[in-house]
């Protein structure tokens, strides 16, 4: 089975966001593999264990994205592809087009990705890709069982669980609960250094910069208003409870 995993590199979720000169500062920021993509990589490994095959992880992004791809190789993926976008303004439209141009030249049975990225969080790329490749997709899956050319998946739909039967090849995006992503082992990290790592440019994919032009643009950035610490209620718990309910009625006027 040929498995492809879509990867994005994101800020670590521990990071605070600082805006400098109208841009998000990446000074000293720690980057990680998008947490939802970890589930996708883990699922690819589990499926390969069962059905055999190879796993290729594919990322679109600046050069530093290589680090996240190497983490996936260290977890056990076989090959990595980095489609460089240095100097390009991309949005979900363009990223999905680049991925479709690459995958259109590959033979694939299963394409996995994260449900959304924890930075821009649009949740578009994988679903768009499925359409561009004209294959079915299910987003936000919490279970995947493959039998021949048929997959049975559970999809988390705002708390409800939908079970679908989907014919392969297909795109699935991983929701929390799909599995427990492993940590890269030391031997895994050593082995990853020798695994095939391909770098591609937009030109290599037969696309021009204008093909990859974004359809949306950011015009400004802001931070949420800072919250101030309020008051700690005094007295015993019964008094505190009564005061809180009273404050919600009289001060906040929400009850």
């Amino acid at each position: 089975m040929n498995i492809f995993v879509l990867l994005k590199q994101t800020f670590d979720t521990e990071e605070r966001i600082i805006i400098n000169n109208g841009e998000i500062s990446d000074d000293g920021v720690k980057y990680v593999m998008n947490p939802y993509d970890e589930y996708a990589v883990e699922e690819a490994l589990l499926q390969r264990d069962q059905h055999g095959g190879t796993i290729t992880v594919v990322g679109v992004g600046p050069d530093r994205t290589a680090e996240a791809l190497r983490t996936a190789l260290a977890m056990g993926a076989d090959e990595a592809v980095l489609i460089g976008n240095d100097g390009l303004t991309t949005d979900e439209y363009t990223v999905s087009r680049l991925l479709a141009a690459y995958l259109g030249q590959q033979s694939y049975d299963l394409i996995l990705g994260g449900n959304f990225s924890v930075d821009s969080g649009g949740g578009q790329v994988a679903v768009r890709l499925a359409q561009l490749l004209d294959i079915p997709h299910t987003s936000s899956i919490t279970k995947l069982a493959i039998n021949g050319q048929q997959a049975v998946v559970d999809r988390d739909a705002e708390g409800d669980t939908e079970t679908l039967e989907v014919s392969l090849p297909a795109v699935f995006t991983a929701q929390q609960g799909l599995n427990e992503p492993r940590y890269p082992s030391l031997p895994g990290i050593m082995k990853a250094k020798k695994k095939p790592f391909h770098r591609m440019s937009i030109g290599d994919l037969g696309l021009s910069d204008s093909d990859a032009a974004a359809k949306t643009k950011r015009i400004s950035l802001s931070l949420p208003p800072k919250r101030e610490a309020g008051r700690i209620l005094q007295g015993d718990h019964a008094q505190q409870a009564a005061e809180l309910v009273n404050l919600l009625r009289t001060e906040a006027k929400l009850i």
Partner: protein
Amino acid sequence: MGKTYVVVAEVRGGSLRQVTLEALQVVSIACQEGDSTAAVLIGSQTTKLASELADYVDGKIYSIDHPELEIYNPETYLNVMKSVFERVTPDVVVLGHTAQGRDLGPAIAAQLGAGQISDVIAIEKSDDDEAVYTRPLYAGKAFEQKQFTGGAQVVTIRPNNINPSEAAASAGEVIELDYAPSASLRSIVKDVVRKTSGKVDLTEAKIVVSGGRGVKSAEGFKPLEELADVLHGAVGASRAACDAGYCDYSMQIGQTGKVVTPEIYIACGISGAIQHLAGMSQSRVIIAINKDPEAPIFKVADYGIVGDLFEVVPLLTQEFRKVLV
């Protein structure tokens, strides 16, 4: 010629979701002189809902009613949208940023070769009368304002952030479209387990009672559920509680998980890690209950109670019951 806006309505539990009216409100703000609005209603037994929707849409309502459409399936719903687009060429498609809209929106965008701005929480007009959309980054640690650069547009809007539309001046015209079931579907919905029926949806709840590591066990969520019931709210959780196996991941609030913006957020036994704060700090009033007076959650809380949640929460439930019943 003016632009054509198409709102994809959403049905849940036999009623129109409020986010559909919020999407219509976005359209009425975005619209310029000469633009037109249409709505698409996909489902089973939609006749009554279509006429309900018509009160809010001064334009055509395409109603596609078939038993096979009762449950969302990315393939059948997209096929329906394609058939609608044969009759009306959309310039802008607006959906809810819901389980359905998050899935259908990008599929429509890819079909139209359109740009998409997802998870919109506010809309305003620029000086040249173009729509400017605000959306969160890093689950709300920052916000960006975005515009389209040209071509077709898809917008998904987060429930509960934009005021719902008022009824239109004149009711719209309902057009029933036939649905031809496809014999060669590549995805089939086999089963749906409604875990949420009868419960308030977490992302739409006006009040959220949330538990962290301090609830100590699955059983420990009981008092939180009782409080949420009294308040007609929903129960959420921190990542720590989910990872510890006390509750389902579908309850997780934070940068991974869901972002909630209720009127009242009651954090019980949650320390307030930055990932969690990203998912709830836009709530209107935050209440923190924690044994540790140094817990970071108190730095963002409007009201704090230092104490054991197992003692405090039942007392709160009792007090709320007094004033609400």
